């Protein structure tokens, strides 16, 4: 990895101004075991596609729990959209998925992150596993808003179509959809292969990989093995913490 010159330079990668209040304006559950939250963030600072927010919950006795969630919405969206996987033992995600209603207020901090961001102007290859698609939805929506969808190549992997967040949007954008537990069109069930990635690659691309630790490891090794320079690959992994870093 080279010095982080970069994309993030000049943007507030540290959360400006600390904690803010966000009013929940929409709650949807398009997929099982997950929730899509649309937030009206007061005094919001614009984000870059790929950045995340921290959500903090506070109990009556002052006990707090906080987790990071990638932003799915484009910078131009008047609301901030988060897509949260409900982990059965997740203290924060179960609350967000089961309890939160429109009109509730949440404490949030962000946008955060100066590394796993897309500048909207340079070619990018986006490779996601499961819920790792969320930051790429922000990138895709931003590209659509600015008429630069030509810059993005997208490959996503999920167990089944029903478990792929934003599946319709990804298919409409021409993403390569890889399903490991069921066939997709004429493609049999199976993991992402190097042969599938090769046609998506082009010179000058930055490659973004987002997913579970095991997916990210497999995908980056596939890329490096194919000859993609390691220094052009940016990785966001999430583990049991449910938090990108």
């Amino acid at each position, binding site marked *: 990895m080279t010095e982080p010159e970069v994309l993030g330079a000049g943007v507030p990668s540290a959360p400006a101004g600390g904690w803010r209040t966000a009013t929940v304006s929409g709650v949807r559950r398009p997929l099982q075991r997950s929730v899509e939250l649309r937030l009206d963030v007061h005094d919001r600072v614009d984000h870059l596609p790929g950045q995340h927010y921290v959500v903090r*919950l506070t109990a009556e006795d002052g006990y707090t729990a906080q987790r990071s969630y990638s932003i799915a919405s484009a910078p131009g969206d008047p609301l901030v959209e988060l897509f949260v996987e409900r982990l059965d033992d997740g203290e924060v995600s179960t*609350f967000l998925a089961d309890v939160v209603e429109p009109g509730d*207020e949440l404490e949030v901090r962000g946008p955060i992150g100066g590394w796993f961001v897309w500048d909207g102007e340079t070619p990018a290859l986006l490779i996601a596993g499961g819920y790792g698609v969320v930051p790429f939805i922000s990138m895709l929506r931003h590209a659509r808003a600015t008429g630069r969808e030509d810059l993005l190549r997208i490959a996503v992997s999920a167990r089944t179509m029903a478990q792929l967040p934003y599946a319709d949007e990804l298919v409409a954008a021409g993403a390569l959809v890889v399903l490991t537990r069921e066939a997709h069109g004429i493609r049999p069930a199976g993991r992402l292969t190097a042969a599938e990635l090769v046609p998506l690659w082009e010179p000058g691309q930055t490659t973004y990989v987002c997913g579970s630790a095991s997916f990210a490891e497999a995908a980056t090794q596939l890329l490096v093995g194919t000859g993609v320079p390691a220094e052009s690959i940016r990785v966001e992994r999430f583990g049991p913490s449910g938090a990108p870093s």
Partner: protein
Amino acid sequence: MPTPTRGFLGRRRERDPRLPPGQYDVGADWPVLTAEPTPRIAPETWTMTVDGHVEEPTTWTWDEAHALPRSEYRGDIHCVTTWSKFDTWFAGVSVDTLLEAARPTADAHFVMATSKTGYTTNLPLEHVTGGKAWVVWEYDGKPLPIEHGGPVRLLVPHLYFWKSAKWVTKLTLLTRDQQGFWEQNGYHDLGDPWRQQRYQGD
């Protein structure tokens, strides 16, 4: 105190006193969080260098580093993404031992740790001296796994874990603080978990 969130009770009513604020106990798991592809580093090609503002810039090979006095850490680690892991056991060499050989000059007050991948992180010198920091190659009595920074990583367990650079290969003594990778990307220059120094400005 922040305003309570409607309906939030919180699960963990008994706070383990070892948990810094805003952290939770990850249990037996050890999440892997890195910003770059995992490098494959053969121990025989790894070296450890201490340079910059020192009297005696020094480089150790794998065998030379292992010949130094063994030092262990048993205790907790804390990641800025809010997990903490209790009762870890690492072994390697104390950073004090490396600095004794290289002898920082009187005007050296900061350290930049550099990894094989080019990852960097900055630390005040006083936070890696006095038995507070290690260069480690063993976890739980076994070789440190590659995804956790093997063959060798820095260990500074009293600070958030991004300071404990994976695949470390160099410590550079500096007279003035310079920001490393995550620090340039918005994270805190010191990163004390007990003061929740997660981001710049905390």
